[in-house]
């Protein structure tokens, strides 16, 4: 079975092999090291001319990639830790993301930035965050987050080869070592791909429900590594508490298309959003906002499970207390139904 890391690594190899316009830039990505998390392993050996290790200049690297994208290349940038997307905020928000619109649709900026996010490794306050929230909703960029379902590499490959706008690709660090699950392999869950996508949205949304379970009374919406935690919580809630859940998994975070969530809540009337970032103004805020705008009093209850609104401590026990875990999800779900 392939891990998420292998799937992403393979996608990068395929992208470089299949399109000469693809370049990969990042800090310490040369072999034998192959990048801090090894997602870029082998690239510099196979494609030495198009794998560029860079100085430690996050803003500069991303700006260089933007310039390359303006002239017909398809650069992929790795930001070593997602915590440092703060350093590219200006290049993303006031440059790459704006160009297509402000230059009157005369050009586009096909640049992909891959960023490892997330905690649970004890790296402490500046190396553990889930920070995509600062870019969620910014006009002009797409934000994707693979999970262990189906084909994370395919999602990345499509973004690199076919998306003409800037893409922020969120990779949870814990997810790297998880096996990729095909829909067929899953014994516990029936997994369907939501068909309520926009034409331009290539990133799938999934519905997971326990096979042969009664109709669900709660919708859980989530993405990324939290999908794994939610699956376990859903199983436990079903078997121990007879609470049945429709688990909706998104792989495109922004622009928001929460139709799959709305459709589910329309039936369950209860919505729990689970994410790893700090709670306030995270992804879940917009999900809840759009849900109540769409559904009004059809929503009986709504809640979020997320990190506490503090920095992420280095110490294991403190970190665990701050980050959301399976038990937090179970407790939140039980309170709702």
């Amino acid at each position, binding site marked *: 079975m392939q891990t998420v890391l292998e799937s992403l690594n393979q996608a990068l190899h395929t992208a470089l092999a299949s399109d000469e316009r693809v370049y990969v830039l990042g800090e310490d990505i040369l072999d034998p090291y192959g990048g801090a998390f090894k997602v870029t392993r082998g690239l510099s050996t196979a494609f030495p001319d198009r794998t560029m290790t860079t100085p430690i200049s996050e803003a500069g690297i991303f700006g260089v990639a933007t*310039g390359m994208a*303006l002239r017909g290349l398809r650069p992929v940038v790795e930001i070593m830790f997602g915590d440092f997307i703060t350093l590219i905020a200006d290049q993303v928000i*006031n440059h790459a993301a704006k160009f297509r619109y402000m230059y009157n649709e005369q050009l586009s900026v096909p640049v992909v930035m891959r960023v490892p996010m997330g905690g649970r490794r004890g790296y402490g306050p500046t190396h553990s965050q889930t920070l995509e929230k600062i870019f969620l909703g910014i006009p002009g960029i797409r934000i994707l987050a693979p999970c262990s379902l189906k084909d994370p590499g395919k999602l990345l490959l499509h973004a690199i080869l076919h998306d003409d706008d800037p893409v922020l690709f969120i990779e949870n660090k814990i997810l790297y070592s998880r096996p990729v699950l095909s829909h067929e392999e899953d014994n516990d869950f029936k997994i369907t791909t939501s068909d309520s996508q926009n034409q331009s949205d290539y990133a799938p949304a999934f519905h997971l429900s326990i096979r042969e379970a009664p109709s669900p009374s709660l919708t859980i919406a989530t993405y990324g590594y939290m999908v794994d935690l939610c699956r376990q919580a859903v199983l436990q809630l079903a078997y121990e508490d007879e609470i049945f859940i429709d688990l909706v998994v998104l792989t495109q975070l922004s622009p928001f298309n929460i139709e799959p969530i709305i459709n589910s809540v329309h039936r369950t009337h209860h919505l729990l959003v689970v994410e790893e970032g700090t709670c306030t103004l995270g992804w879940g805020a917009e999900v809840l906002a759009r849900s109540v705008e769409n559904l009004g009093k059809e929503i009986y209850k709504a809640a979020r499970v997320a990190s506490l609104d503090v920095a992420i401590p280095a110490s294991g026990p403190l970190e665990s207390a701050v980050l959301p875990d399976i038990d937090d999800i179970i407790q939140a779900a039980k309170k709702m139904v």
Partner: protein
Amino acid sequence: MSNNSKSDSDQISKVELADLYRSMLRIRRFEETVLGEFSRGYFFGTTHTYIGQEANAVGVLRNIAPEDIVVSNHRSHGHFLAYGGDMRALFAELMGKSTGVCGGRGGSQHLYWKNFYSNGVLGGTSPIGTGIALAEKFNQRDTVTITFLGDGALGEGVVYESLNMASLWSAPVLFVLENNHIAQTTPAELNLAGSIVNRFNAFGIDSEALDTSDVLVIQSSAVRAISEVRKKSSPQALILNTYRFGPHSKGDDTRQEKEILELRKTRDPISILAERLDPDQINPIEEEVDDEVKQAFQKAESDPIPN
């Protein structure tokens, strides 16, 4: 540092001198019209005019190859017109018309046309110019990218990230540093420690510094620099000491009027070049340019607003 040199102009044909003069005068009259008409409500937002610095854009861009690329900043009108941008489209852009360079979306500081890009965030364009230059290099094109920066933009850290990468990766980019000795209202000595030349050299980028408003001198240095960047496929810098005669944007000049009068007397690129032209060459150009500017303004004015 070079200085005005008569010998250069001896080689240059009357036609070329007239063209240079026309180029600079187009910018001058365009900017005067912008400043003059602003208070009448024709334009949206604000504007940064290029009056006094015309020799830089014209001298640098006069001889570039058609594929060469320009990355400009907030003070972009002069660069745009010298690059060959359409005057009516620029007026229309400032007026927010659908015929504007970017259909009115960008406005004065945010232009894109052919190989010309500008943005209003100081310094932020420098890595982009470097990336553009690299892409051209990777694609085996012998394009030169010209990135304009002001003295004030040297405050931004991303500029140094860009110098480092341009140098490390031999990006064929010419950094043109227009040091007009002021950033908005702040004199360079309150903004910049050390030396501008050394800042480029410290990153392994050779530079030449000029202190002139003579377009011929600038032109000849620029031709040399651009051809070296092209030949060596590596970065260089051209530091142009220059003076802004107008306000930073509109009515925000905190300098002494005396100071500016003195500058206009000694450092006006248009008067300096005028001395090299036959007196009877000048009038027709003046008329031609006045007419062009007037027509461009009127056409833009009657262009439709976007919806």
